């Protein structure tokens, strides 16, 4: 835990989980981030980088990281569009490595399920089996980080559609909050916890 959240450490956490996402040139990236956000505001989601088949595999993968149940998951959040747009714009230099990862994924699918090449063609249980077999690989780490980034970054980046990611976590999107902020700082609860010291 020490290496996962203190002020000194949090960037390292990010780095170790999503290193490949942090290698782009920072100065260029700033402009590209804005460019990407602008494009999303302009248009209905369309694929800019992935082929349809690749997009289906990426979406299948992301949907196993955060599945859809009674609440929206990575699919409904549009995570695939976040990743697609990233690779088309501010992470362009990492696109070849990502494509390689998808090619290897097809081979992994084939090794587990003869005759298959597409993760998206498998059942969810079969998809989980494939993901478990590659859980320790850098590509899995990248896909997990990319899924979470797409789920929880601002919708302007293409994912987190209608803030479904934030809603899932219970994070209200507001510019202002007023006390009480939580169960604990409601005066009656605080009094009950602290007695005469409240």
């Amino acid at each position: 835990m020490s290496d996962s959240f203190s002020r000194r450490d949090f960037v390292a956490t990010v780095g170790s989980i999503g290193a490949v996402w942090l290698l782009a040139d920072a100065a260029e990236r700033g402009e590209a981030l804005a460019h990407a956000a602008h494009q999303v505001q302009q248009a209905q989601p369309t694929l800019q980088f992935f082929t349809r088949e690749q997009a289906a595999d990426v979406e299948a993968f992301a949907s196993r990281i955060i599945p859809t149940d009674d609440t929206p998951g990575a699919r409904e959040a549009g995570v695939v569009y976040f990743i697609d747009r990233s690779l088309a714009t501010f992470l362009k230099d990492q696109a070849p490595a990502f494509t390689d990862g998808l090619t290897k994924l097809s081979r992994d699918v084939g090794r587990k399920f003869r005759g298959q090449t597409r993760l998206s063609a498998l059942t969810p249980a079969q998809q989980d089996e494939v993901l478990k077999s590659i859980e320790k690989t850098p590509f899995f780490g990248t896909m997990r980080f990319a899924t979470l980034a797409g789920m929880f970054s601002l919708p302007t980046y293409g994912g987190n559609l209608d803030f479904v990611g934030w809603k899932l976590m219970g994070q209200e999107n507001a510019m202002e909050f007023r006390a009480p902020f939580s169960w604990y700082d409601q005066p009656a609860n605080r009094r009950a916890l602290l007695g005469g010291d409240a």
Partner: protein
Amino acid sequence: MTILQGRGQAAPARRFTPDEAVDFVVIGSGTAGGSVARELTRLGHNVVLLEQGKQYTRADFHHDEFATVFNNGYCNTPPSHIQTWRKTPNEKAEPRHYLVYATAVGGSSMHYAANYWRFRPGDFNEFSRKGAVRGAAMADWPITYDELEPYYTAVEWAIGVSGQGGVDPNEGRRSRQYPMPPLDLNGPGVLLEVAAKKLGWRALPAPMAIASRPYNGREACHNCGFCWYFPCEWGAKSGTNFTMVPEALASGRCELRTECKVSSIESDNRGRVTGVVYFDQDRREVRQRASAVFLCANGAETPRLLLMSRSNRFQNGLANSSGMVGKHLMFNGNTGAAAEFEHEVNGYRGAPVTRIVLDTYETHDKGHYGGGGFDFRYPFPPLLSSLNMPPDGPQWGADFKRNLRRLHTRISHCWGHTTQLPQATNAVDLDPEAKDSWGLPAIRVTFKEHDADLKFYKYMFDRGVELLKAAGAVRTWGNPPGDDPGNAVHMLGTCRMGNDPGTSVVNASHRAHDVPNLFIVDGSSFVTSGRGQPTLTIQALAFRAAEHASRMAKRGELG
């Protein structure tokens, strides 16, 4: 230039020519430099304020975690900022993005969490009180708490600090109450109150450099929660970008030049500095003449610039006859433990910290040298939070999703903030090979934790877990820090103050021992590390240094 924030009315832009010897060039517009510029202009001096980063306004800020946290928005990043790192002096340093600091008007005060603890009197003479520690270069400060107290008060009122004096029985003498009451108590704050009560400790209202009431024309905090590591969308954070720098500009005596990267401080054969050389926005080299220079570039960039400013007279680097420039790098220790609570804590609402516990400020009787304090907080925005779910639990799939849904609003951390010992081998210097995008030598960091500190971090981590349990945690997780922290902030100690020119870089007035018209003030001035919240002390030192320099300039002692 339009003044965007602060009490001053917009003054006509002041412009100086490079050939005109301005009274002071101030290098860096952060906590120290922004304050020095404001104080010097208030005292009647002309100032050129150089900042390597850009100037942002409130309208530039947003809830964009992906840009701000994950793409190091506003901070030093390659290729403009290159660093190398090694643990010990006989290793070859490898490229590593290790030190993190904002490069923008306001420096790191533009995105700080804004914990504004004063030092206690005993922080200034820990060496005399406790004696030597093997492997550490302990020393007393050349000033006392009482000498600094008027400047602590001046800073608290100048920028706007919220807090409640007089409730901490161990605080130093205070000449004036805080200008504003504490910020609204939030969920983690109540949990810390509960924990402290159970352990027989005391939860104190946190002193924070965030306005709890409208202050000097700025908005009060709206509790939006995007605070720790984010610049303030309301202008309620009292960083120098919203306070000191606009006031310096409003004086009509200050010119701010942004995106200017200083490459050297020049000196003449009498050993006086004559001005600075920098690359402007278009990477053209400019030579600005000055009667005196204030170096306030932070605990890493300050020693680097001195070491880059070699001359025939100063072959070891400027102001470095002692060989102490860059030595004794300290960061403060940080411990973190996490816990799940039964009800919603909603740490993402309100100020990052609303209560603190300082009962571990002195731990000599427990066999430790230093000390520290605690807060409860959970300022992690959604993406960072999702990456920090309990490590022994599921990291993907339906159960992971259940954790995200339940825990984001129910986690509180306990963060410990501690001393860190000064060691001569921990240092910032120039990498012999690596260069940044200006072609300037990269910062090389050499850093290894002291065993006594590692032992103390473990002590603090364990107390943190106890606090979380005492607060009613359903479960806790985490580990004490190991000897390689991923990243570091709070760069301290690298141009230490002292009375002896043989063992320190600046004197008690922050004047370089070797150079009568060069002043150095920022985290580099620290002799010892304090208890983990250095920013108010940096700012009080800056106010004091500016006053001393002004007095000397008016007496004609800087020529």
